[in-house]
């Protein structure tokens, strides 16, 4: 069970956060959830697939790092081998929380930063400080706060994007069959991609509506990201060659 605490500059004054990328800090993951506003940055390095959240069955976009649970082919002894790391990874161990407060007798909610106290990234000796000596936020924390804000906005808009994809029947399930250099065969199942045939058949009005909503760009970004499947297979081949 993770324990989440509301971040504050009294209880957490001395805390530091390790920002090194390594398996022992929880980076050994197959994918990270992402959102349409992030697709442009993500597609430069990772394939973007869609999957169903286990708890709700709702579609999510994912930046793919590997082919099986717990496999991150970007992670090595030298850290994370890509110039862009998705915000879903970068934000660890912070998350957005909501706090109710009263303003002029009206109850409102505001977004606050929570901290996962069980995260192995939390340290007292090593890593980035969260607060300046006299209580202000450190530049690192400011950076985290703006990443969380970006993620929050992005994930809030994501369901509308998914709904548009479903409405136009632009999602299709696929299974990826991979043959590695050593002759072994692997299959990736349970993921979805953009159905390019359906996309190609959309009429002018439908395309205009998607464009106006801001969804046309992420759709094409997701399609463009497919070229990194090749790259992911190469990484897998290299990793296996190193291991033998």
């Amino acid at each position, binding site marked *: 069970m993770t324990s989440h605490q509301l971040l504050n500059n009294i209880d957490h004054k001395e805390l530091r956060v390790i920002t090194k990328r390594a398996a022992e800090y929880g980076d050994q993951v197959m994918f990270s959830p992402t959102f349409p506003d992030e697709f442009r940055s993500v597609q430069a390095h990772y394939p973007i697939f869609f999957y*169903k*959240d*286990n*708890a*709700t*069955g*709702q*579609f999510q976009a994912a930046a793919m790092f590997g082919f099986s649970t717990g496999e991150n082919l970007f992670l090595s002894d030298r850290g994370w081998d890509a110039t862009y790391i998705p915000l879903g990874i970068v934000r660890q161990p912070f998350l957005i929380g909501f706090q109710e407060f009263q303003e002029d007798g009206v109850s409102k909610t505001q977004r606050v930063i929570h901290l996962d106290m069980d995260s192995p990234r939390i340290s007292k000796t090593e890593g980035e400080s969260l607060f300046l000596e006299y209580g202000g936020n450190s530049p690192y924390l400011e950076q985290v706060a703006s990443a969380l804000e970006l993620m929050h906005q992005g994930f809030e808009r994501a369901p509308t994007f998914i709904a548009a994809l*479903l409405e136009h*029947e632009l*999602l*299709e*399930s696929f299974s990826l069959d991979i043959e590695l250099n050593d002759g072994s065969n692997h299959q990736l199942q349970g993921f*979805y991609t953009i159905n390019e045939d359906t996309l190609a058949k959309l009429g002018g009005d439908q395309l205009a509506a998607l464009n106006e909503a801001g969804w046309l760009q992420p759709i094409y970004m997701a399609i463009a990201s497919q070229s990194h499947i090749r790259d992911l297979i190469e990484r897998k081949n290299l990793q296996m060659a190193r291991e033998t």
Partner: protein
Amino acid sequence: MIDQVKRVVIVGGGSAGWLTAGIIAAEHAAASDQGLEVILVEAPDIKPIGVGEGTWPSMRATLERMGISETEFIGQCDVSFKQGSRFNGWIRGGDAPADHYYHPFTLPTGYPEVNLAVPWQQVRDQVSYAEAVCPQVAVCNGNLAPKTISTPEYAFALNYGYHLNAGKFADFLRRHCTQTLGVTHIKAHVSGVRSADNGDISALLIDQGEPIVGDLFVDCTGLAARLLGEHYGIGYVSKRGVLFNDTALAVQVDYPQPDAPIVSHTLSTAQRAGWVWDIGLPTRRGVGYVYSSAHSTDESAEAAVRAYLAPTIGKDAERVELRKLSFNPGHRREFWHRNCVAVGLSAGFLEPLEATALVLVELSATMIAEQLPSNRQVMDVVAGRFNRRFLYHWERIIDFLKLHYVLSERRDSDYWRDNLDASSVPDTLAEQLLLWRHDYPWRQDTVHAEEMFPSASFAYVLYGMGFSTAPFPHRRRRDQKACARAGELFRQTRADAQKLSGCLPSNRALLKKINAYGLQTI
């Protein structure tokens, strides 16, 4: 000039009427200008009888063909998942927990390439047939759902049908039929029939408004059978001499707690003069004792229902109000006469032991929709085919229901003893049983392309009830093949049962999630 079929009029607005309207309207584009005209006329104050709360897996395809969202259906009709039936106390009677077996909806592992009934004979003392060949038994035992929230609408991990609230289902279908499928809904009492010179029905007279003219009339008026029975006087073939049950005492009971587990199969518990059904909806249970009035008084039947309920609802069992239904088991001599066809209870009614009422509606409406005659000249040909096919279906259902009784070793009442009387067993069933004593049910037992019961169903009931098939006198290639693959397939069944039991949510948890998030369509 040929009289084209341009307008179909359905009389009666229960689940039979609206299912029929929806299936025909969807197939014949009633919502478009070029489509067929479909009208449903319903008396405003007649309450549907509200039986038929269990469906077969076929209902999934039926709903999907009508363009219905499974999420909406589940949310609006008090739906839960049904994965088969569990028969308690049918083998020897009494309260022994071992006296039960399952008839799950999922076909046996390896079916129809391999018949696992053959190698199962070697291990029949250690494991029940259904458990050995079907992972669904373990899932039913755990009150688990047949799918997860990530499984798309109508898709499954294990085959399933539904338990539903029949009244809400009819309302839901009515909205879909009138709002989406282009069915015209007329609320009026049918006061008479106007005949054409050739004896066809030309129009229905209604209490207020113009007569409703039509080219084909579908009688969905329930047990009254206003058109086929009252108007045309088509005779009724009673099957009381085969299937003795003719009375039911039905009751709805609340769960002890709102979050109590929802059983994912129909429970059928044998009694001294019939059996008790027990169907779990999300909101309540529907329970009823269906019995033979020749073998039990209403008083002792009532006592049996209350005794059945007592362990689960305590003192309330003495207070709940029972509703009595009487029926004459059987069916019409023919179902399609001239330009009138009966669907639902107007065609016939049998005890709900294998929940065959709604599936017969689906099959009838689908055949009418798929083979709808384009004009009056060819209608009699289609009617002849329809009558032959559905007489066959009714006979197979009657045989299959009777099979449950003749296999029983219960001798504790006249009811069970009388069920063995040779004069009460149809010849077709007696022949089948003789064959099955010497060979396993297999593909040869399904004669028609659209058989209602696959041989797998016979095997589940036969071997569930402890039936013995003598070993074939010599080794056949297909038996050898089955025995060679038995170890692997039995292992696979066990592994699937374990895996599914670990990953499927409870029936109730999944229904809650579907109401919160909905199922995806892909």
